[in-house]
């Protein structure tokens, strides 16, 4: 056993796969310690907040300030409000309202804004200008008014008579240390369509998906193994019957069967465990076939015949004389089943046939909701890309482990 393990861990492929898988597992256990709470909690009101660090504006206003005189602060501020395209657009407006723009330097902010202030009128409707464009100019004007605004913002609050009373001011050179703001929240992967923390959800979903995969793999392997052993060792009519059913299941595309069963179960009954069970029940066939063929080649070996002659029971022969010889194969098959179980859950959920959504997050459900909310077309990559990456990493690591094991145990591949 020790020797086998040493051999296994000599395979670089297995080690890489193992390390990735363990890293994912460790993250699943460790991350919730730092960020506890319900992963399905809708913290954000609104859809798809960008990844980044958010700090409470309310708290920031009340945090003690430092004065920093940064040379390019004004330029940055202006750049935020007035991009190069905006400058071109200003010139376009000026020409549309018949202002002579010859000699006007587009980079001369002062001159440009002066012309703009003098000539922009929101009620004017230049010929052929679309409503969308006019709305754009309205927004631009509002943004430029911000730039022109006084150097200090006034913080005011209602006094007892209900009138606004100045409480303090904020100047352009006031800065606060983020560390001193009472409420800061980092959302490394932003929020999803429900305003949930994507990273937290992802970690929890990866866990659920791995559990679904393990359960599906276990069920599939157990069924496949049992039937394969019986069919291969007992043979005869038993073999015929088992192979009859196995062939039927092999011929019907597994995924179609999976869809039909999931659909007919109905959403109310579809918990994560049920989905795992369904996946397991539809994917055992090739394990069964391969186990059977290996058992057939084993059953006439001398040690098996000796056991038979010694009057050992069927169960004992299978467990002690046959199973150990195919154990390495079964482990590899199990790993592949886990991997395909995780993928199957993702595929099912993407079709809206996954586990019901209110209870646990799964990788497939996250993708499903991201797709329903068109995250892929509105640029919210954080809602689906990390999920795809996680699924890929999990199945990549499992497949790598499988290949590594194969190299160790399969005599034809052994170096």
């Amino acid at each position, binding site marked *: 056993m020790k020797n086998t393990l040493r051999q296994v861990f000599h395979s670089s492929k297995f080690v890489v796969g193992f390390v990735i898988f363990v890293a994912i597992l460790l993250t699943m256990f460790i991350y919730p310690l730092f960020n506890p709470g319900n992963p399905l909690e809708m913290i954000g009101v609104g859809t798809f907040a960008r990844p980044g660090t958010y700090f409470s504006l309310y708290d920031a206003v009340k945090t003690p300030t430092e004065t920093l005189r940064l040379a390019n602060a004004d330029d940055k501020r202006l750049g935020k409000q007035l991009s190069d395209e905006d400058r071109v657009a200003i010139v376009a407006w000026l020409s549309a309202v018949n202002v002579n723009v010859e000699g006007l330097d587009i980079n001369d902010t002062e001159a440009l804004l002066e012309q703009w202030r003098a000539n922009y009128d929101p009620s004017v409707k230049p010929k052929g200008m*679309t409503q*969308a464009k006019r709305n754009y100019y309205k*927004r631009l004007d509002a943004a430029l008014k911000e730039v022109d605004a006084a150097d200090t913002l006034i913080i005011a609050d209602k006094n007892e008579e209900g009138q606004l009373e100045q409480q303090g001011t904020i100047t352009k050179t006031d800065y606060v240390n983020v560390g001193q703001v009472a409420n800061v929240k980092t959302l490394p992967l932003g929020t999803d369509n429900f305003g949930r923390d994507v990273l937290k959800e992802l970690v929890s979903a990866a866990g659920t998906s791995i559990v679904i995969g393990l359960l599906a793999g276990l069920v599939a392997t157990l069924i496949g193994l049992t039937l394969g052993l019986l069919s291969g060792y007992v043979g005869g009519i038993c073999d015929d019957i088992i192979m009859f059913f196995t062939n039927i299941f092999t011929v019907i595309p597994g995924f179609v069967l999976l869809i039909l069963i999931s659909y007919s179960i109905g959403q*109310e009954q579809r918990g994560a465990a049920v989905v795992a069970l369904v996946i397991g029940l539809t994917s055992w066939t090739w394990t069964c076939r391969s186990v059977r063929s290996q058992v057939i080649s084993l059953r006439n070996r001398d040690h098996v015949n000796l056991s038979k002659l010694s009057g050992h029971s069927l169960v004992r022969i299978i467990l002690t004389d046959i199973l150990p010889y195919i154990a390495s194969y079964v482990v590899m098959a199990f790993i592949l089943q886990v991997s395909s179980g995780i993928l199957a859950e993702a595929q099912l959920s993407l079709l*809206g046939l996954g586990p019901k959504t*209110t*209870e646990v997050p799964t990788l497939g459900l996250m993708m499903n909701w991201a797709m329903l909310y068109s995250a892929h077309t509105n640029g919210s990559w954080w809602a689906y890309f990390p999920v795809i990456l996680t699924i890929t990493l999990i199945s990549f690591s499992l497949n790598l482990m499988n290949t590594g094991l194969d190299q160790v145990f399969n005599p034809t591949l052994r170096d």
Partner: protein
Amino acid sequence: MKKILCMAIALMLALTAIGALAETTDLPRNETLYFAGQQWGSVNSWNIIGTNQNNSMTIAGNSGGYRTLMFETLYMYNFMNGELVGLLANDDYAWNDDMTALTLTIKDAAKWSDGTDVTGADVARTFDIGVQVGNNVGTGFKSYISSIEADGKKITINAAVNADGQPVNPLKVLDFLTGAPIAQAAWIDTVVERNNNDTVSILNDPGEDVVWSGPYTKFYADDQKVVLVRDDNYWGQDASMWGKLPVPKYIAHAIYADNPAGENALKAGEVDVCQQFIGNVQNLWLEDGLPISTYYEEAPYGVCLTMPTAWYNFNLPVLAENPALRKAIAMAVDYDTIIANAMTNQSPSFADVPRSLMNPTEGEQALYNHEEVADLQWAGMDIDGANALLDEAGLVDSDGDGFREYNGEKISLNACCPNGWTDWQASMEVVAAAGKNIGIEITTLYPEWDIYQTVFTNPNQTEYAIYMWSPDAAAPSNPWQRVNQFMGSEFVGVENNWSGNWGQYLNEEADALIKKIPVTTDTEELKKLYTELTKIYLTDVPSFSLMYRPSLFHAVNESVWTNFPTGDDGRNIPPADCTDGYGIAALYDLELVEG
């Protein structure tokens, strides 16, 4: 074998080439106005007196007004100001003193496409055949209109009267003016004759030879596209109506597979007017810089006329017997999240427009006394209040499993809406999350639409506990009609019920008040009645609205066309997709973007 393969490939190439040729017979872009979000699937028929036409571009009664591109109504409804603008009929209609008869005249200029005059007889025949065959006009109005008399261009609509000699509902008579497309009497006779007066065949007649009065008619329709072409002989270019023809020569609607397909076409400028919900629509111009705009520049971007509502199933004893449970769930729901998520803020919040039976338009909001019901309203996310209410009602968790019980059984409800209706699904997720907070097990359930529609319209169903549907949006008979849909007894027990009160709620007191409204004309009295009804509704909570929502979405891409109606242009054209009710006026003002 190789030969066969080669031939097959050659055949495929040839077919593709033919397909490409067919593509090139496209309509001239600068004469065509493209739509999305109205027509799903191919057209079944052009039979205006039939049913199941699946012909949304020409035969569609929306609550924002009838779509009058091909078939016209007597009046156009403008939901911006509640006005009825004359279309086939002259602007002035008049009630007699006891509101049992309404008289109006057809415009002298109004003509059918075959050149004959539109007369009162056409209107009368349209109503009569509707009642005879039971199409939408017939079933919708036969309880409210007893008969229509015609005398040349003059029409008298006699309201149905009850035992006391009072009209059943004058408001619904007004709905007829804006909601019933008029068909030609002569054509109706042809259809009746060729179908041997058989109801089913009349309803299913394809109506390819239909006679119309509107500005457009069919050009071609297949499973890819529906195209209408302008009728340059349209009577409406007469000075007594529009004085000109609508600007686009063609109206085209490609048949898209789903919402994202239509949305992408809008982004690409292949669609000019899009009647689809687009999440975070402002990003299209703020972030993507596309020439797309909506009726209002700022949230809520459109005019919210309806309230998608979660209905409680009164067939389930646990819901029917526990007003506290109904109210507690409604109080615990986080409406801000629903509005921000499901509607991406394209709806006013319940803090801005407190919940009642009214939609958020000023006209309806003025119809009830806000102070009197203020104590009963809730803005949501009131977990403590909901918990207290449940505790007080004796619905407590006695076995410590985290869920409350009623009569010793765990309260377990489902929250349902059709699968794929994402904004509603998101709302149901939020409702389920609210349940978790107050110890009520609520799980979401999203059946396919075919299943959903048969269950929620079944008056005896016990499968769905909380389920979504929208009451009517805007029509001359609203808000009365909506109130009736929320609490009216007339829909209780009705099989295949698409009309209202989907939760089967019964309240005699409310019912009596609802019956009084249509015959009340005094504004103060009306306000009193509506306030009383709002009180009952907010106390009994037979259902709760989740958001406010436009009945039509109206996003336009100005790559080709411009001068679409906007909220501040002073024209008062409603954002009804340039097709519905008075919204069609927009078609006469469109301009091409130059350059």
